[in-house]
C-alpha cells in the first residue's frame, strides 16, 4: 500500500470544492460534506494544500523534537532552504543555524546535486539510451510517469535523486569520521520543501528503500532557524557547494548545468503534463534532456516553503553570485557511474484510468458514461462532489455516485419558484 503524505483534516474541511477543481489527477471527490482523496490517483503534488482556503490539507512530516534518540543527527537541507531568507549573504550562516538548533552535522543536498550533475553528463554520453532523458529528481514527476505515461518509463534517468546520493555520502562520512558510532546511531534528517519528497522517502521506489531516516518540513525548520541565525557570529561550518548545486533549487538549474543546449525545463504540474504528452506524441524538437518540476518555479515552489518561488529564486541568484561554478567534481577520467547511485526501480505501471479489467465491460461502461454525460448540464460546477460532469458520469457508472447528487438537474427552474411566491 502506497503511503501518502498529503492528508486531510476533516474537521477543517468545509467541502468547498476548491481542491476538487485544482487536483491535476482528479483524485479528489467531495463526499458527506468533505473532501476524500483517492489514494491510487494521488501523486502527492501538494496542489490541494496550496489552494485550500481552510488549511484543511497538510503534508505529513515528522517533528525534529521526536527523534532525539539518534546519537549523531545530520541535517540534509534541500538547496531551496537557502532561498527563504531575506538578505542572506552567506550559506554558512544557515548551516551554522542548523547546528545551533541541535543538529550535530550538516550535509548539503546541493553538494550531492553537483555530483548528480556530473553523473547526468556521463549518462547522456552513454550509448543506447532513450532520448530525451527525463530527470528523475522530482518524485512527483516520476510517480506521474509511472502511473500515466508508461511509454516514457525508459526515458527516466536511472540515477538516484540528489537526496539519496546525499544520504549515502553523509552516512559514509559520519561513519568514517566517528568510528565510535554504529550505523543505527546516525540519524539522517532531510529538510523537505514538498510532500512529494516525503512520500518518496516513506515509500521508496519499487524495491529501492530510501536512506533517509526522518523527513522534517522546511517550514518547521525555518521558524526555528530565524531565531537561531545570527549574521555576526563566525560560522564554524563552511558550505561545500557551488552555483550549480544551489541552482538545482529552481527550475532550469539542473538542466542548464548539463552543458548542452538541447534541453527543456518545465515547471508547474499542468505544464509538466503538457510536455509529457508532447514527448509521448513525438511532437517536440530533438532534445537531449528534459527537466520537469511539479511545482511552479521548481523546488522553491514546494508547498512546505515559506517564500514565494520567484522571490526565492531571486534570492538564490544573489546567494549564488560569488560562488564558484561547481565545487564537487568527479575525479578526472571517470567514465562510469558508480553502481550505488544507479536505480532502475520504478513502481509497477497500474492502469488507474481503466474502467474494468474486461475490455468488453470497459466498452459498455464507456458507452454508458457518454450517454449519462450527454444528459448532464455540462457546467462542471462541482456541487455533486465530482470535479467535472464527465468525471461525475464516470463516478455514476463506477457505482461511486448517484445521479441524484446533481444539484443543477434536481433544482426546479427558477421561474416556477418565483411564480409560486
Amino acid at each position, binding site marked *: 500500500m502506497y503511503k501518502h503524505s498529503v492528508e486531510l483534516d476533516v474537521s477543517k474541511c468545509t467541502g468547498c470544492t476548491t481542491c476538487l477543481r485544482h487536483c491535476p489527477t482528479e483524485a479528489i471527490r467531495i463526499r458527506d460534506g468533505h473532501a476524500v482523496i483517492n489514494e491510487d490517483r494521488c501523486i502527492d503534488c501538494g496542489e490541494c494544500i496550496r489552494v485550500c482556503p481552510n488549511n484543511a490539507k497538510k503534508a505529513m512530516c515528522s517533528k525534529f523534537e521526536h527523534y532525539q534518540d539518534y546519537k549523531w543527527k545530520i541535517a540534509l537541507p534541500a538547496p531551496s532552504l537557502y532561498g527563504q531568507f531575506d538578505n542572506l549573504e552567506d550559506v554558512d550562516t544557515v548551516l551554522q543555524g542548523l547546528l545551533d538548533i541541535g543538529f550535530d552535522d550538516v550535509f548539503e543536498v546541493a553538494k550531492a546535486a553537483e555530483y548528480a550533475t556530473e553523473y547526468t553528463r556521463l549518462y547522456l554520453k552513454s550509448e543506447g539510451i532513450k532520448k530525451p532523458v527525463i530527470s528523475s529528481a522530482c518524485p512527483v514527476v516520476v510517480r506521474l510517469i509511472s502511473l500515466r505515461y508508461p511509454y516514457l518509463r525508459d526515458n527516466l534517468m536511472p540515477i538516484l535523486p540528489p537526496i539519496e546520493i546525499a544520504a549515502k555520502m553523509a552516512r559514509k562520512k559520519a561513519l568514517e569520521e566517528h568510528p565510535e558510532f554504529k550505523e543505527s546511531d546516525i540519524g539522517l534528517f532531510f529538510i523537505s520543501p514538498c510532500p512529494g519528497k516525503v512520500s518518496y522517502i516513506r515509500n521508496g521506489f519499487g524495491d529501492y528503500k530510501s536512506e533517509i531516516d526522518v523527513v522534517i518540513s522546511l517550514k518547521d525548520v525555518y521558524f526555528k532557524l530565524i531565531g537561531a541565525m545570527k549574521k555576526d557570529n563566525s560560522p564554524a561550518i563552511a558550505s561545500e557547494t557551488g552555483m550549480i548545486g544551489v541552482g538545482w533549487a529552481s527550475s532550469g538549474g539542473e538542466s542548464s548545468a548539463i552543458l548542452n543546449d538541447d534541453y527543456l525545463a518545465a515547471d508547474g504540474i499542468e505544464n509538466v503534463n503538457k510536455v509529457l504528452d508532447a514527448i509521448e506524441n513525438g511532437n517536440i524538437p530533438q532534445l537531449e534532456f528534459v527537466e520537469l518540476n511539479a511545482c511552479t518555479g521548481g523546488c522553491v515552489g514546494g508547498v512546505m516553503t515559506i517564500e514565494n518561488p520567484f522571490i526565492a529564486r531571486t534570492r538564490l541568484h544573489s546567494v549564488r553570485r560569488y560562488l564558484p561554478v561547481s565545487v564537487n567534481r568527479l575525479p578526472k577520467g571517470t567514465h562510469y557511474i558508480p553502481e550505488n547511485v544507479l536505480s532502475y526501480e520504478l513502481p509497477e505501471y497500474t492502469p488507474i484510468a481503466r474502467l474494468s479489467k474486461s475490455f468488453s465491460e470497459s466498452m459498455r461502461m*464507456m458507452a454508458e458514461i457518454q450517454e449519462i454525460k450527454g444528459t448532464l448540464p455540462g457546467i462542471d460546477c462541482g456541487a455533486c462532489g465530482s470535479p467535472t460532469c464527465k468525471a461525475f458520469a464516470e463516478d455514476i457508472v463506477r457505482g461511486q455516485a448517484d445521479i441524484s447528487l446533481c444539484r443543477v438537474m434536481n433544482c426546479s427552474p427558477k421561474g416556477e419558484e418565483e411564480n409560486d411566491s
Partner: protein
Amino acid sequence: MSESLTFHFDVDGEDFTSAGQASVQVKKNLRRLGISPEIIRQVSIAMYEGEINMVIHAGGGKADVVVSEDKIEIILVDKGPGIADIDLAMQEGFSTATDSVRSLGFGAGMGLPNMKRYTDEMTIDSVVGEGTTIKMVVNL
C-alpha cells in the same frame, strides 16, 4: 462482443493554438478502456498528425475514433482544398504548409508519412476543391 464505441470530435480550424486537443482526449478515453500503452501511443500520434493537418490545410474538420473489439479506426473528414497528388503528399519532407505555419515548427512534411507509419492501414480519398477523407486502422 460486436458493439463499437465512437468518440466524435469537431476540429476547430479557426484556433490554431488549440490544435492537438482531440488527440489528448482520445488518449484519455483509450486509457479508460484499458488499451495497451503502445496502441494508445500509435493512435494518439496518428490522430495528432491528422488533426494538425486538418487545421493547417483544411480549416478544420471532423474526427471520429471508433473502437471495436479487434481494432481502432480513425476517420478524418474535412472540406478543405483536397490533395492533388497523394503519392507526392506521402513523401517524407513534402509539404504545402505556409511559411507562417513552418515558423511554428510544423509543416515538416512528416504528417501523412507518420500517420501511415503508426497505423496498420491507411486510405486517403481526396477530391481537389471538395475535401479529404482519411481512414486509418490500428489493429488490437
